[in-house]
């Protein structure tokens, strides 16, 4: 096994014991279970969960990831003093953080949905498997993206307080301000056909992309009228799916790659 794999393995073992990871899984479990039990049908629960996933998951991932790398500073130094390449260490640590967070999310959200689909008596409250799959997939991708950003930021900023600030700003930018920008553009250029530009902008932001992919599964396309039809058509094509997948992939790879570049040059 290569060094990155070894580091990942040991990190994984440590992460299972981390109360933060357990808390994180517990939070999603409680949210999903609560929404399914008290929030009516599973489609509605999934939409509510979508809000939580889109808001909290990136925030937690980026803040947790940033803190994690800052706190692991001594550990990183010790490991770098071993015959280890920085690339291997970075990759191992990244996987060692991201995979447990993904697993916590998938288990936390997935288990209540699956148990409810088995225990519920009425067929209508059974889970919509494809919607849940998309939701889980979106959550997994967002985790990878925002932990990659976290590692980039923590490698870039020596000062922890500054790093946390930057992490928060990145989240604000992608999670809120970007959408404000879309709205501003829609408002300013309302005389033009905006479906394609809006589509492009949505694909360019991972949170928006994740949101729209899940929304289309919930038939919300109908609500969106012509815009929805354009979106549904686009995402129904292989090209649309390939473009979405590559967008998410790029959002993981680019910050990760930049993070490695910075990490390799960095002084400890």
């Amino acid at each position, binding site marked *: 096994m290569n060094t990155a794999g070894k580091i990942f393995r040991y990190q994984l073992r440590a992460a299972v*014991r981390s109360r933060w990871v357990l808390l994180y899984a517990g939070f999603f479990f409680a949210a999903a279970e609560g929404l399914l039990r008290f929030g009516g049908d599973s489609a509605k629960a999934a939409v509510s969960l979508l809000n939580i996933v889109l808001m909290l998951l990136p925030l937690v991932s980026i803040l947790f990831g940033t803190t994690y790398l800052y706190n692991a500073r001594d550990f990183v130094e010790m490991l*770098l*003093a071993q015959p280890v390449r920085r690339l291997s260490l970075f990759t191992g640590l990244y996987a060692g953080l991201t995979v447990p967070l993904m697993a916590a999310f998938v288990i936390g959200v997935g288990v209540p949905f699956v148990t409810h689909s088995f225990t519920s008596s009425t067929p209508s409250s059974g889970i919509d498997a494809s919607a849940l799959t998309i939701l889980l997939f979106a959550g997994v991708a967002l985790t990878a993206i925002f932990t990659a950003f976290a590692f980039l930021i923590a490698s870039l900023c020596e000062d922890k307080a500054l790093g946390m600030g930057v992490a928060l700003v990145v989240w604000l930018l992608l999670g809120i301000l970007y959408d404000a920008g879309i709205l501003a553009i829609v408002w300013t250029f309302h005389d033009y056909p905006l479906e394609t530009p809006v589509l492009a902008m949505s694909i360019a932001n991972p949170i928006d992309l994740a949101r729209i992919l899940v929304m289309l599964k919930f038939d919300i396309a109908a609500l969106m009228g012509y815009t929805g039809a354009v979106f549904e058509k686009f995402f129904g094509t292989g090209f649309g799916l390939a473009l979405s997948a590559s967008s998410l992939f790029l959002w993981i790879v680019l910050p990760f790659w930049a993070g490695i570049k910075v990490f390799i040059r960095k*002084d400890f």
Partner: protein
Amino acid sequence: MTIIELKKLKKNFGTLSVLKGVSLSIEAGLTVAILGPNGSGKTTIMKSLLGLVKPDSGELWFRGELLTAKAINDGAYRQNIGYMPQIARFEENMTAREMLAMVRDIRNTTASHQLTKYVEELTRLFGLETQLDKPLKTLSGGTRQKVNAVLAFMFEPELLMLDEPTAGLDPIAASNLKDLILAEKKRGRTIVLTSHVMSDIEELSDIIVLLVEGTIYFQGSINELLGQTQERTIERAIARILKSQSTKNIKDHEHSR
């Protein structure tokens, strides 16, 4: 044989110049103490050798080989180095045993059985037997420092770099550690250490390197140091050098005005 050679090593952190062209060569088998005030660049020298800090210019030689950027990145040469950092707050949810296993795993050590025996010896020496299976977050700072020491020594490396090794240790553990260092020294290992404890330096080191603001002010044996400064203790000798240097600095400073 020269095991370490630094040639005109320079390093700036932003506007702060930490190493101002340090040249230093260390003979194999000797114990070298790098002394100097806080922020004088002691740790930076060690970290440069480990590849943790990338020097701006200058050369680093280890065992007769130039440490190029590629060599540093590959890191194979670090097989021969044991490092005990000043502070050791490691992955909190791991146990000491896992931590040792992890580093061993990463090192791809083949003679694992024998090593285990040696590790056992080391843990016994530091009284860590009962602490090995507790998560590191539950261990005290001193205990962690002992784990840290085990990590540095367990591979029996040719070169040991110990950054303030006795800081934070109780007197018994400190003296155990010093015994260990002396034993390693006897086995012909090269040891580079920093310390603020003069008695430790007197006890352990053959060579003293005095580093002030990124420049080497003195390099030689303890006797040479005492002889040169006409002082009776290392402490006073160093103080004298620093004092004369600072008055000279002030003069320089006034002169430049």
